[in-house]
């Protein structure tokens, strides 16, 4: 195991809490050492896996620094290098394995670091074997999914999808840092490895079908969507059938929501978007008292002139009712809302879920925040209620066929749903706090994690973070992570594209990765077969099978 392992230095200082310091070998250049890369310390009885967190220049003699050798004093520079002047690298040990447990080709599970190596322990560059030992490999088990590579190696880094789906998770990063690609990767992994059923609220129609790549990337203009990669396993629902038709994509179902499904809680959580005053919301409750489920329909059908009488009828202040009426009239413009609806969208969704079919709900042109939040809230609230019932029934009968399918709901612009105020009102806050009690968890995508409620953030199990440079956002993403100070510098030093820091429940230690390329190789790896005319017909046939003629 010792061949060809390049030594980079020896341990000279450090502590368990503060991290270790390594004196860089004179044969290694300081410039070759990068923050976020992976090294291994060979202790006497254990092996320590560490990440480089800081690089520093040191000298034994301040006189040398006060009178540095000039450019021509070559011999002096060479003599001083590594003796009087040398590099010190700060390492953070994250995992250790006992050397005596080594079995080649098998997974030696690492555990938390409880001690440190002795003085002068040799430090070497990490190699492919080390990475697979720590992060698992797709070869060991189905639960590992290859998500990228470390900064300076070609070995795949895997996340443990079983542990990923045990909690809610988040994908964060500034705008333009590739969150969408990361999300597609993760979703593709969940779908391929059949770890959970996904319901994706696709605000900008980015996940279902083909999307144009940004100009800088490779020659081909379009990346494949989940529906194209996984065919019948993914159902494409839409709120805006016209938009779908214009883009020439096939959607499996058009979602329409009847007014009767909208509750006052749904409106309340949109109070900010709708610019509704609290009293106006209170008046809505008065309408509900009188008209029960039909409250919204009744309100919107009122003649504006007759509002005063209506207000008296329900016992509310006329101004409040007016305001309510005015603001809620916006809802009349939404084509996906209707008085009566032939097929219940939620039923269709549950049908798909029970058949292990994943759902991408596209919003087409209805991609404003208001419609996004409204629809996501309404559908999720009902699905959650159904799930609670199912779970309770399962707990009673304990039959395997009653076990609810694990559902992961993906929402974008999560700070709109999960800011401290909204988190208390929306169903998403509830789901985040419940963890997996009712078999539902979230995948939140966001560029402003500082706007998300702290309590919710601390429940996020795994965080995949692309570049963030706002201090507040960085602090937010590191909430609930122990000893996070060293991760701060790593986060701020990520490349703008194709690099992310993965940390949390699904990985044994935080790691910086270069994200896996989302290209033909990936498509082939998840089992995509290229399109042919036969495929379209097959798809059409399947749709008819599932849904009847829509």
């Amino acid at each position, binding site marked *: 195991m010792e061949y060809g392992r390049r030594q980079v230095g020896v341990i000279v200082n450090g502590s368990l809490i503060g991290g270790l310091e390594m004196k860089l070998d004179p044969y290694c250049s300081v410039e070759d050492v990068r923050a976020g890369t992976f090294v291994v310390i060979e202790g006497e009885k254990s092996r320590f896996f560490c990440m480089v967190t800081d690089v520093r220049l040191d000298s034994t*003699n301040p006189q*040398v620094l006060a009178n540095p050798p000039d450019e021509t*004093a070559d*011999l*002096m520079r060479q003599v001083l290098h590594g003796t*009087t002047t040398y590099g010190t690298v700060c390492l953070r040990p994250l995992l250790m394995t006992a050397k005596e447990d080594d079995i080649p080709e098998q997974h030696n599970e690492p555990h938390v670091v409880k001690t440190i190596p002795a003085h002068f322990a040799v430090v070497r560059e990490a190699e492919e074997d080390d990475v697979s030992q720590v992060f698992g490999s797709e070869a060991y088990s189905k639960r590992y999914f290859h998500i990228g590579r470390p900064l300076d190696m070609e070995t795949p880094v895997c996340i443990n999808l079983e542990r990923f789906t045990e909690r809610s998770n988040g994908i964060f990063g500034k705008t333009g840092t590739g969150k969408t690609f990361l999300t597609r990767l993760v979703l593709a992994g969940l779908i391929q490895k059949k770890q959970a059923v996904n319901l994706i609220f696709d605000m900008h129609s980015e996940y279902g079908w083909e999307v144009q790549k940004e100009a800088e990337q490779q020659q081909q203009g379009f990346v494949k969507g989940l529906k194209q990669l996984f065919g019948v396993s993914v159902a494409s629902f839409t709120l805006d059938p016209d938009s779908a038709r214009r883009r020439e994509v096939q959607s499996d179902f058009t979602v329409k929501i009847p007014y009767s499904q909208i509750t006052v809680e749904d409106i309340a959580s949109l109070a900010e978007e709708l610019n509704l005053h609290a009293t106006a919301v209170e008046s809505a409750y008065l309408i509900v008292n009188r008209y029960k489920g039909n409250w919204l329909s009744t309100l919107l059908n009122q003649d504006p002139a007759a509002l005063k009488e209506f207000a008296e009828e329900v016992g509310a202040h006329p101004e409040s009712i007016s305001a309510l009426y005015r603001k809620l009239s916006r809802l009349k413009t939404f084509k996906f809302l209707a008085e009566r609806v032939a097929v219940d969208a939620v039923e269709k969704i549950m049908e798909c879920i029970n058949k292990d079919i994943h759902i991408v709900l596209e919003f087409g042109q209805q991609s404003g925040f208001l419609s996004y939040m409204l629809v996501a809230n309404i559908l999720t609230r009902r699905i959650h209620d159904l799930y609670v019932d199912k779970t309770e029934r399962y707990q009673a009968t304990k039959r395997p066929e009653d076990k609810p399918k694990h559902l992961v709901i993906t929402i974008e612009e999560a700070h709109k749903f999960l800011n401290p105020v909204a988190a208390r009102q929306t169903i998403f806050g509830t789901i985040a706090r419940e963890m997996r009690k009712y078999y539902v968890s979230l995948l939140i995508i966001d560029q402003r994690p500082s706007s998300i409620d702290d309590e919710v953030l601390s429940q996020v199990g795994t965080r995949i973070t692309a570049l963030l440079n706002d201090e507040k956002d960085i602090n937010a993403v590191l909430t609930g992570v122990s000893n996070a100070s060293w991760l701060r510098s790593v986060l701020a030093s990520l490349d703008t594209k194709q690099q992310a820091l993965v940390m949390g429940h699904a990985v044994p230690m935080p790691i910086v990765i270069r994200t896996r390329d989302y290209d033909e190789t990936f498509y082939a790896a998840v089992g995509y077969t290229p399109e042919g005319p036969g495929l379209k017909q097959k798809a059409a046939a399947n749709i008819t099978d599932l849904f009847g003629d829509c």
Partner: protein
Amino acid sequence: MDEAAIGEVIGSSSTELTAESRQLHIAPPFGSFIKVEQRHETIYAVVFNASTQSLDPNRLATAYHLPEEELRAEHPQIFELLKTQFEAVTIGYEHAGVLRHHLPPQPPRLHSFVYACHLTEIRRLTAYMGFLRALMRVDRVPRDELIAATLRNAATVYGEDERRFLVQAGKELVKLVGDDYEMLTSILQRVQS
């Protein structure tokens, strides 16, 4: 004294030896490697001092104000009364084919012959940087001059590897001079020039 010998030991101690040059005015160069061949062992040393003076300590040399050729022609006896001697610090010894880089158990015997070292011997002696420590012990001449001269002499036998040898020696020196950055600079400047 055989033809190759350059001197004869006239004084010795555990750490140093003094020898008289075979020829007047011709002592081995400052900082060069010499050896004393004895029956069972060879002792190696580095020359740190050379001097020429009168044989009779009561009679000091005085000036004649004449060029050397004329002086030899008119007063040849003067040169009979002078001797050149050199001192060297012991850096190691070889016994039964094994070279050891520490002081020999016994000092060199008086009246043994002194020879200059071959290139291969110099290479073997300088393969281990311990000789620098021996040079540091000398306090009667400026250490930086001595070490620089020794390194210059040693470097010549390395040919293409000269730079690598010098850098290695320099790194060893850093440990020996400790905080004395001035000393280090002085030595390396003298080596490079």
